[in-house]
């Protein structure tokens, strides 16, 4: 069985600074994989490399066994990898409904059509309404996304990423800045929308990580120092030293 994502000796430098220093990582199909690591370890950079936002400096990325290195983001998305962002990245002047509908458009094979009228496309609108209900924003669907509360915008962010039905979903700190109850809701949402899919997430909240993840990778200064089950990661000496120990107060 091919893995969902294969990273082979992945490297990224910004000028003389090497941020990602040779990452090898396999993410299995259907697993929930968390990437943790101290601030500045390169977690978000790793996400940007996989999803096509940054060009690779070296190495390769494969999705379902197919090489996707240096493809533009939209090509990677079309091959079935969708992602959310650490800093909320939505369409602020469009309504919540429009935001989600745009997220569905490619998957519903509209491409760049100028001969369909979106309001007439019943299936598209029904699916949009379903996604909005899943992310709990039905009562807010007609207001501009820019005026939603922070937690609502985060939910919308996940909704847009998941709407298209990509089978690999990458979430970059989905619960950052949320209160406890909001975090609980977000986790429930993440579980629901990634059912039967591959999930890769960057997360700072250890509670969330150990709760959700099947396997965890620890990234420290651009290198993966361990990939294992939550239990083994917790007991891993190197990890404790590099990460958990140093930031035990988290």
């Amino acid at each position: 069985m091919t893995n969902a994502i294969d990273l082979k000796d992945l490297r990224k430098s910004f000028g003389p600074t090497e941020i990602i220093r040779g990452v090898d990582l396999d993410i299995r199909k259907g697993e929930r994989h968390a990437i943790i690591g101290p601030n500045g370890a390169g977690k978000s950079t790793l996400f940007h490399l996989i999803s096509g936002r940054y060009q690779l400096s070296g190495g390769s990325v494969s999705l379902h066994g197919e090489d996707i290195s240096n493809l533009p983001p939209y090509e990677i998305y079309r091959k079935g990898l969708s992602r959310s962002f650490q800093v909320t990245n939505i369409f602020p002047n469009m309504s919540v409904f429009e935001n989600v509908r745009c997220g569905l458009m490619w998957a519903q094979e509209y491409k760049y059509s100028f001969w369909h009228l979106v309001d007439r496309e019943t299936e598209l609108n029904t699916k949009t309404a379903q996604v909005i209900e899943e992310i709990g924003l039905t009562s807010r669907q007609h207001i501009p996304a820019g005026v939603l509360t922070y937690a609502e915008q985060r939910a919308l962010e996940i909704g847009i990423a998941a709407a298209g039905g990509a089978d690999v979903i990458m979430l970059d700190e989905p619960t950052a800045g949320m209160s406890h109850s909001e975090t609980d809701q977000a986790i429930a949402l993440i579980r629901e929308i990634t059912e039967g899919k591959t999930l890769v997430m960057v997360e700072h909240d250890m509670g969330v990580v150990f709760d959700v993840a099947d396997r965890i990778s620890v990234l420290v200064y651009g290198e993966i120092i361990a990939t294992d089950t939550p239990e083994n990661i917790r007991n891993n000496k190197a990890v404790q030293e590099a990460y958990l120990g140093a930031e035990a107060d988290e």
Partner: protein
Amino acid sequence: MSEITKTSAATVQASSLKRFGPWIGFLILLMVMPFIFTSNSAIFTMNLMGIFIIFALSYNMLLGQGGMLSFGHAVYFGLGGFMSVHFMNYIEDGSFVFPMWLLPIFGGLIGLVFAIIIGSFSTRRAGTVFAMISLGVGELMAASSLIFVAFFGGEEGVSGDRTMGPTLFGADFGPDKEVYYLIAAWVFVTVVLMYLFSRTPAGRLANAVRDNAERAEFIGYSQRKVRFVSFCASGLFAGIAGGLFAVNFEIVTEENLNALTSGTVLLMAYIGGVGFFIGPIVGAVVFTLLQSILSHYTDIWQMYVGVMFVLTVMFVPQGLTGIMMMHTPAYRMKRLGGLTVPYLRLGIPAISMVAGIAGFLEMMHHVRGAAQGESTMSLIGIEFDTHSVMPWVIVAVLGIVGGYLMRSQAGQLKDAWETANDPTAGKKEASS
């Protein structure tokens, strides 16, 4: 819960009256306008208005809908005009049999072809890069129009005769009024098409790319292609507007594709409000009215339009349509009446101030521009001597007192505005 079902039901199907009502109203309005305003100059103005409505809406497909600031949109308008006027001459020569009323199609086609060529490289980036390329292409076209005389006719342009070719129901489009109906029909069709375009996946994604180009790439869309599709559609409609211009004026010159015309369309769209579909329509109507009415009374009308543009950019970036739309919450709560008096209290001093400033400018202009020894001028029907002191005192008083009162009244309008828009004030009838 009832709220939820209500809103989702409303999304799926709005009642057909609500959907088609505005369009029927628009169609009727277009049809009856020449019966309300019957004078030749009114017909002339309305013809120009119609052309500018299409042009400004096509421009807003770039600026308002797609987030592309173009300084060279007149290229497609002008080329559409030139192409149409050439075909007009082919029809006149008899080398080509074609009804004149379909002529703007050729304008649209050449607009589309050039949009495809130019858009293929200019839509790569939005923002400054796009704006600079559009400016460069605009200058290039304006310059070549004086070089390629065969096509552009040099400085005197290309002229034609619209009355040739097969007639339509006996109309040969000789009289301006027949041209009005021709333009009105094209306006209706193109406005509907442009509105429908905004409701297609390509149109919706243009909004998405405008809002957040990066994110659009992560939902499967190349921002460049999304812009390109809008750009091509925009070029097509600008070309149609240019074709109508050719039919209406029977002459097209270099001026129709230079930076001045590009600036005019930007002005119209912005004054009207780029954030709304109808914004450019409002802008085109207001601009044409200002141009044709104000220019009757004053030589410096362009200055007033310029000042209006600057004020719009500074204080009401959402444009005239935005100002109107700002009142919908208060209107829904039936509190608009409460704003009448505060508006009057601010509006009367404001009018006085504007009158004072305008009077001053007009007198300055007269003093500077009038012939030697000529010191009498007339303003709104009043004759006076610009070399005497009194008129200057009057405009100064109007301006200063008006300005002072306006400042002092701003506070009460703000209070009244807040009361009128506070959903918690008064009865709990606020509908969100």
